[in-house]
């Protein structure tokens, strides 16, 4: 009975096998690259609130006439303060809605009385230009419930985001398109 001894590989077979292997590896790499491309097309720009340094460039460097970046509000984190430092300037004359007391340059925050001494603050996105002035006030003195996010009903998802290029905090990141927001939460 003959054994199962392997036939020796001649030079021609070796070269042929090597070429086949290279072709298969190349195809694999191509498929992988295409798959990665699909993943990249399935991602969008977003701001990591923990990295945002409130440099103001979201308001001035977006390709859109009015920035796609808006202030958003984590109500669960908010203290509903009577003296909201995201709403009022650093040293307001009075705690009223008079323009001279407000911090926002476009009056994009609405202040509504809830019950003594609590007030609710809501962002009017049509007015918000993403300047982060309120974000700085809220973070500096309060709980940081106001923060910036790229709003995907406006963002055109440029390959190279013109704000990300100049962001002082390198806060722009790519996130999956099906989970496009990085929201603040509370464990308290």
């Amino acid at each position, binding site marked *: 009975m003959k054994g199962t001894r392997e036939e020796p590989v001649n030079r021609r077979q070796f070269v042929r096998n090597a070429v086949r292997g290279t072709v298969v590896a190349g195809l694999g790499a191509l498929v992988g690259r295409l798959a990665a491309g699909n993943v990249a097309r399935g991602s969008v720009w977003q701001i990591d609130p923990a990295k945002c340094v409130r*440099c103001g460039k979201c308001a001035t460097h977006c390709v859109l006439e009015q920035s796609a970046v808006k202030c958003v509000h984590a109500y669960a984190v908010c203290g509903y303060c009577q003296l909201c430092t995201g709403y009022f300037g650093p040293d307001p004359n009075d705690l009223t809605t008079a323009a001279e007391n407000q911090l926002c340059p476009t009056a994009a925050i609405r202040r509504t009385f809830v019950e003594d001494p609590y007030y609710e603050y809501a962002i009017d996105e049509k007015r918000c230009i993403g300047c982060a002035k309120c974000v700085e006030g809220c973070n500096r003195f309060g709980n940081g419930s106001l923060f910036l996010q790229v709003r995907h009903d406006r963002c055109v998802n440029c390959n190279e985001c013109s704000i990300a290029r*100049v962001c002082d905090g390198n806060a722009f990141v790519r996130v999956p398109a099906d989970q496009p927001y990085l929201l603040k939460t509370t464990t308290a």
Partner: protein
Amino acid sequence: MNGKPDQRLSRREFVGKIALGAIGAGVASAAGKRLVAAESNPFAYELGNLAKTDPKLIGYEETGRLPALPMPARHLEIGPNNTLFAAAGNSIVSMTRDGARSLEIALGGPARCVAVAADGSIFAGLRDHIEVFDGKGTRVASWESPGPKTWLTGLSVGENDVFAADSGTRVVHRFDRSGKAVGRIGAKNAERNAPGFVVPSPYLAVRIHRDGLLRVNDPGRHRIEAYTLAGDFEGAWGKFGAGIDGFCGCCNPINFTFLPDGRSVTCEKGLPRVKIYTAEGQLESVVAGTESFPENAKVGAGEHDSDASLAGLDAAVDSEGRVYILDLVTAQIRVMRRKGTGEHKA
């Protein structure tokens, strides 16, 4: 035409021009980036002179700093014999006034506040309950939590009672020395004239004053309130304002303590500063202004998962009137004494 000079480039010239072009483009790109980085922010949050302290108001000078505590450091207290106690990391640390560690008690979780009785018993506040240790650090008891929303941030111990400030439910719990809950102070109650504490961020502190009344900060109302041990509201002082005589931002003062003669030492966040007020609430002097705490002033809130992520200061005072300031950001303790001859106005 034959009359035209030969404008063809040699290979060497061509490569040279390409290299020069590349260098020029690189320089222009770098300069452009620097220009972008140097752009001023037209929407900058301007504090102006609010972060500067009038030197005439500063009544104290720093005489030293103690070794940094475990992070995050949250609370500072003075015990018998002027021993310092700190709630820092997952432990209660005690040390001499020179910073030499004398005791370290490991807890099962983050330490948030501490109080020490005259007999040396140590009361450690964790998030939702109090643990009791003898003077050598041996655990004596672990008290039942007041409830799932409890978030303890301040403790004070009297002869027969322990008072625990709960930022989570916005009240001060009163316990007897065995840990039995005997009262709740500060909840909105018209019969006791209590307006209810406003606590936007987790800073509620409680101290027993030498006049026998409790003092509790009400940060959302920018004042210090006085209560009887039974919970009757007796009065308050303090006003909002970023100026030096007010309490700045949404919610200050965040902590306070007393000098030996009963005057108040207040701590603020946002514009981190420590000030002295008379018993009537008049600003008397500044212990340390905002410019003394650059790291603390820079901190903005991150994720709201810790009561130490919001920065701020705490303070304790020894029997000679020295003020010890705990910087919650750097976990360092600064030792401050009244300016002048080195004597302390006690």
